[in-house]
């Protein structure tokens, strides 16, 4: 029996995050014999993640800008507790090149890629040109095309129809138009330019190939600090709502060995083009005719990393720590032999029957599923008041199965066992989504929810049983303690306010 040497390792890691990912990183540290430091905002003074660390430091008031996004406070907490490395998790400061550089300048280790690689991938147009130069497919596009009909027509033909017209200065759909033939091109272009001018004071436009019903497929990369890199296969994350991933799986039902070979090679080339180190994810859009185009690279741990861990057996967070500590990659590409199928779904504090408005309430009762093939990464606990200030991700439920169908059925049964009372979640929506025949057949794409589940309402299959339970509760214990009696009646601020969510 050989005990694997662990190499030079950190003594104490500060986890600059909250919720499930902070706990997941702390578990990885403990298993490697590393002590951990939690940071928390005043809104998280009773949050579960602080109880998983060996020390906890309050870094400011509830708004992220004054706490989890405040690099100086986080660095001060690291100095105060003697941490020698910082793991940023995902979201917050994870993709800030300034933060990564500040950590390095403070003589601490940033558990992630070099600041330069984060910066290179953070400038999206520059990253696009850079990976294209490295031979990675990018969707055909034209920046500020000629305005004369002949020049414009030629540019559009070169891109190929349908073409999407976007405002160069824009965002939020303003000035965006899909053009399916040259006959419409001139008129739509002129209308888009007028709309862009009105909205942004800038009428420059951008043409790119419009992809219909693409799949979102991404490749997980691991690169060490010695020039070695491998991939851990792909994940499909097509099930999204407003660019928010909801269900992820691996392998993708649409990717065969040949396509996998091409996509993973492209992903490694993209990572190499920016001198990437540590764990990262290269995202692509995949069309029904198996063309794929670079979308962006996420230069950090990905929310959906557990499904890759389930099929490959590689602990990605432990790998991040070992790579950051300077250990040469201990795995070769041929050691990675994915097995079976894994699916993750994200448990959000939101009301799927009511425009997915965030719900931020107290967890009155919690029972998480368990058993064969089931993994829960949870950031909540009974009694926890889910704060309004942060991403509404409560937990991730991931399952492994011998094949996709076993995994899908297991996930549905696990969701039926999942009980969260007090805070509304998307669990009933997820069950219906996973039971949808198109999902069962693997026919997934980024418009799946709009197409198959518009205006979802709960089926209320168990209304009779639930009503009987409520009636018996009223009948057997009608006396009502006044505590919290009026709390839930208060209007939700979410009808008028937006809320920041993790950008992925």
């Amino acid at each position, binding site marked *: 029996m050989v005990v694997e040497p662990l190499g030079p390792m950190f003594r104490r890691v500060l986890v600059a995050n909250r919720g499930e990912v902070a706990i997941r990183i702390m578990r990885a540290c403990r298993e490697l014999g590393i002590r951990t430091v939690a940071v928390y905002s005043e809104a998280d003074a009773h949050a579960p993640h602080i109880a998983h660390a060996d020390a906890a430091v309050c870094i400011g008031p509830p708004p992220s800008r004054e706490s989890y996004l405040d690099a100086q406070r986080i660095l001060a907490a690291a100095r105060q507790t003697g941490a020698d490395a910082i793991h940023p998790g995902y979201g917050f400061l994870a993709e800030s090149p300034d933060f990564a550089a500040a950590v390095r300048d403070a003589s601490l280790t940033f558990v992630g890629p070099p600041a330069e690689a984060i910066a290179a991938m953070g400038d999206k147009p520059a990253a696009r040109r850079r990976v294209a130069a490295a031979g990675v497919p990018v969707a055909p596009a034209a920046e500020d095309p000629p305005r004369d009909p002949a020049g414009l027509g030629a540019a559009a033909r070169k891109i190929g129809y349908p073409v999407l017209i976007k405002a160069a200065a824009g965002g939020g759909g303003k000035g965006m138009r899909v053009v399916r033939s040259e006959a419409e091109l001139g008129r739509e272009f002129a209308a888009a330019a007028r709309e862009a001018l009105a909205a942004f004071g800038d009428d420059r436009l951008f043409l790119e190939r419009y992809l219909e019903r693409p799949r979102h497929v991404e490749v997980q990369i691991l690169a060490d600090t010695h020039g070695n890199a491998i991939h851990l296969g792909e994940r499909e994350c097509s099930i999204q709502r407003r660019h928010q991933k909801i269900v992820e799986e691996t392998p993708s039902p649409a990717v065969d060995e040949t396509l996998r070979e091409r996509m993973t090679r492209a992903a490694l080339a993209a990572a190499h083009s920016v001198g990437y180190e540590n764990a990262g994810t290269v995202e692509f859009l995949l069309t029904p005719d198996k063309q794929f185009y670079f979308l962006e690279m996420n230069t950090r741990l990905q929310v959906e990393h557990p499904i890759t861990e389930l099929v490959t057996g590689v602990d990605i967070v432990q790998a991040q720590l070992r790579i950051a500590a300077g250990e040469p990659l201990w795995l070769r590409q041929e050691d990675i032999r994915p097995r079976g199928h894994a699916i993750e779904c994200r448990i959000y504090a939101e009301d799927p029957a009511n425009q997915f408005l965030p719900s931020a309430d107290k967890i009155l*009762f919690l029972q998480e599923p368990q058993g064969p093939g089931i993994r829960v990464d949870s950031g909540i606990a009974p009694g926890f008041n889910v704060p309004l200030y942060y991403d509404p991700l409560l937990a991730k439920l991931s399952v492994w199965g011998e094949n996709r169908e076993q995994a899908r059925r297991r996930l549905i049964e696990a969701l039926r066992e999942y009980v969260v009372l007090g805070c509304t979640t998307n*669990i009933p929506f997820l069950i219906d989504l996973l039971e949808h025949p198109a999902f069962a057949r693997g026919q997934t794409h980024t418009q799946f929810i709009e197409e198959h589940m518009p205006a979802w309402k709960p089926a*209320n299959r*168990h209304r009779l049983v639930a009503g*009987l*339970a*409520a009636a018996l509760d*009223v009948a057997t214990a009608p006396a009502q303690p006044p505590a919290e009696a009026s709390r839930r009646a208060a209007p939700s601020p979410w009808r008028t306010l937006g809320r920041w969510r993790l950008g992925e």
Partner: protein
Amino acid sequence: MRIVLRHEKSPFTVELQKLDRSYRAVVGDIEHEVETRPLGPATTLLVVDGWAFRVHVVRSGSQRLVAVGGEVYAFVPDSGAAEGRPTTAAVATPEIKAPMPGKVLQVLVRQGDRVDPGDGLLILEAMKMENRLVAEAAGTVAEVRVREGDTVDGGQVLLVLRYD
């Protein structure tokens, strides 16, 4: 005892009668045998017509939040129809309709039979339960429109009664 609750906008009315080891619960015009057994904090085993359900109930204000089978329901006691107080009696309709899609397991009456309130008319299998449909008032069976083994839709007329 009559318990009137609301779930979202619609009422849920149960006539509850405590029996020896269980409850007789009439919802709509269907009678159920309900056994309840505490399993732990906020956790109850509910046996409805022989089928077991793990149910979790917590109170939040006057609300009862109920989780079962991956679904969550918020029931509020109806203040306009408080416990024990009789509400305006619903008019018994002569057409006995299937309250949900299902399969007719057994027809308990034939055309011309006399029925008294609470008499069983038909057993419908739906949602993995056997649901016993009962007469709401005294009368005669005017028409039987289904046979045992028939699959029926929710709302489909199964029998027609002629009330006295």
